[in-house]
């Protein structure tokens, strides 16, 4: 069985690790001291790039690459630590803040030293009152011990860290929504470009980084790139010739909830399969798995026969889903997928910032259609439309045949795709919240169509047995198009 590898969480449960003294006993701030003694800022950036560290907040974007976009000649620059953790099914940042806040501060120190930043804000979601108290106390201690403030440890490096509370809006987790919110406005995401790295907080270059991403830095700096890259998996990106390396290195704080026996945060090497993770979490609660959400509620759902997929950034993307925030929600055979989608669509309709047309009016529309189906009032009329499947030449697409579908199911898919198109991965919205809406809507519908059809046919929610509820692999768009990535082999 797969073993946990606790790095970020290693000392999480040590009593009083939240205090400076105990944190020090467990190497606290020593990695930062080592860093400023041994490395120039540019070297740190190179190391982060070489480590292959990818952002843990959702987008999985290379941290080193993001840092390289920051213009070094514009002052001041800012760090915003994203502690807004609101993606349903995600709860790993909370424990860091509540139990081991000094680790985050150490990560912030390393990032700011590397980027020449002297002001960092930690944007904490408003509901994390305990987390904010603990972090504030830790910040105060760090100031007292000279690890924050002016001329830290005599190095000439200054850093102020402030915590900043959110107020209950999910969209403030989106990096530019966060910046707007921090500036004291509605958390409405900005149009990109310009990206925050170039023009962010107070219109200055800004690095936005998730809590977990930053917490990787002390260990990376303490134990080196080689050690770091030995954890996880590195794939070859075959779009390039010769293949380029596509790292999924380090551990991930997988948050697992729903129908498992031992829900919780498990720190594991990136790249274990969904099946393995469920096993680590005590197995499914109930008879068997019906579906798994692999990366927070925004991620396309996986069916019972897709659990062989590895839960890392690359594999899930190639399986037309995403690792996102690493929030894994398991549903057993008693769950009704229409009902689950309704719950999620209510969430998105409530959380849309309302700024741009497709999302403002499309998201509640999608919710209303799902509500109608769940209420047993889905329209019985059927319409003809082109059937998608394995088309000529073995590719997925229009088969040239027609099929009959329930009008409301077609409408649901079409409205969702008009917000953001799941097949072409294009969106007409300002931010990717749009695709976070259409991904679940379209994937649940396509993969569990029989359950949606049953709800319309029977005029009420009908929970079908797993096999019957799921479309067979041959008709599953994602499964048919999936690519299993191959491990990277360095060119000889």
């Amino acid at each position, binding site marked *: 069985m797969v073993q946990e590898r606790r790095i970020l969480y290693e000392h999480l449960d040590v009593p009083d690790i939240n205090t400076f003294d105990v944190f020090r006993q467990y190497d606290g701030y020593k990695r930062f001291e080592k860093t400023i003694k041994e490395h120039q800022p540019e070297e740190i950036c190179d190391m982060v790039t070489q480590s292959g560290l990818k952002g843990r907040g959702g987008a999985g974007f290379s941290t080193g690459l993001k840092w390289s976009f920051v213009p070094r000649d514009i002052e001041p620059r800012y760090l915003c630590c994203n502690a807004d953790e*609101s993606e349903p099914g995600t*709860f790993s940042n909370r424990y860091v803040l509540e139990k081991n806040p000094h680790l985050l501060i150490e990560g912030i120190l390393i990032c700011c030293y590397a980027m020449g930043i002297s002001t960092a804000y930690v944007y904490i979601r408003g*509901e994390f009152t305990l987390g904010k108290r603990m972090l504030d106390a830790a910040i105060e201690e760090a100031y007292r011990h000279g690890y924050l403030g002016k001329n830290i440890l005599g190095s000439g490096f200054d850093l102020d860290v402030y915590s900043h509370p959110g107020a*209950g809006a999910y969209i403030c987790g989106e990096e530019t929504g966060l910046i707007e919110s921090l500036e*004291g406005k*509605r958390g409405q995401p900005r149009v990109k470009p310009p990206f925050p790295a170039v023009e962010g907080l*107070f219109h200055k270059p800004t690095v936005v980084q998730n809590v977990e991403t930053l917490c990787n830095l002390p260990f990376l700096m303490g134990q080196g790139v080689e050690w770091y890259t030995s954890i996880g998996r590195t794939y070859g990106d075959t779009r390039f010739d010769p293949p380029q390396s596509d790292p999924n290195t380090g551990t991930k704080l997988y948050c697992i*909830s729903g129908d498992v026996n031992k829900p919780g945060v498990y720190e594991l090497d990136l790249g274990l399969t969904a099946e393995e993770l469920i096993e680590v979490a005590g197995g499914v609660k109930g008879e068997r798995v019906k579906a798994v959400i692999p990366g927070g509620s925004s991620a396309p759902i996986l069916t019972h026969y897709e659990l062989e997929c590895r839960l890392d950034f690359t594999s899930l993307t190639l399986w037309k889903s995403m690792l996102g925030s690493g929030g894994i929600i398991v*549903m057993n055979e008693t769950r009704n997928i229409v009902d689950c989608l309704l719950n999620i669509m209510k969430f998105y309709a409530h959380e849309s910032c309302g700024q741009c047309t497709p999302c403002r009016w499309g998201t509640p529309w999608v919710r209303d259609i799902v509500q109608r189906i769940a209420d047993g009032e889905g329209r019985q009329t059927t319409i003809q439309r082109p059937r998608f499947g394995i088309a000529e030449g073995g590719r997925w697409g229009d088969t040239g045949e027609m099929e009959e579908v329930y009008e409301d199911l077609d409408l649901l898919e079409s409205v969702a795709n008009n917000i953001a198109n799941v097949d072409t991965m294009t969106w007409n919205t300002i931010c990717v919240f749009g695709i976070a809406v259409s991904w679940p809507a379209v994937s649940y519908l396509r993969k569990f169509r029989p359950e949606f059809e049953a709800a319309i046919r029977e005029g009420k929610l009908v929970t079908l047995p797993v096999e019957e509820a799921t479309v067979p692999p041959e008709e599953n768009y994602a499964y048919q198009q999936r690519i299993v990535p191959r491990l990277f082999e360095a060119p000889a």
Partner: protein
Amino acid sequence: MSNELIQIETPFQFSEENQRKFDKLIQRYPVKEAAMLPTLHLAQKQAGYISPAVMEHVAELLELPVMKVKDVVTFYPMFFEEPVGKYVIRVCYTLPCALRDCKLVLEHIKEKFNIDVASETDLAKGTTPDGKFTLLKSECLASCDVAPVVMVNDDLYKNLTPEKMEEILDGLE
């Protein structure tokens, strides 16, 4: 709807302690407007909710038109524009909690106090007549491993059942 401007009868002022906190807060940001959310939290702690008087005062402190404050207050669910109960109960209602029967907990509270779930524009219907409790649904509270969860003011309660909830509520003054 009239066109008469309302007159603020009792202007809002920060308590001395909160004023000190505010004075510290405002120094953290290069522009005053950025102190908006922490200032509103501070004011709501003191006043219970964001009344027009609070909005006017915050606008003055941050040197903004009062509409900019109203604009923000209505965007964020954590700010209330009406009085709320002494205890604000937030029942998480998102999928992981839904999979763990948060509905039972919510229904139990509704029955116990004979109230509805408050909405952001109508808090009164979710508030007990004695003004002690306000019941709200909440989106994911990032504690799905210990679902279902409920926040009562600043405290999080985990792994709830209707019985445990009952006990907790009865224990509140």
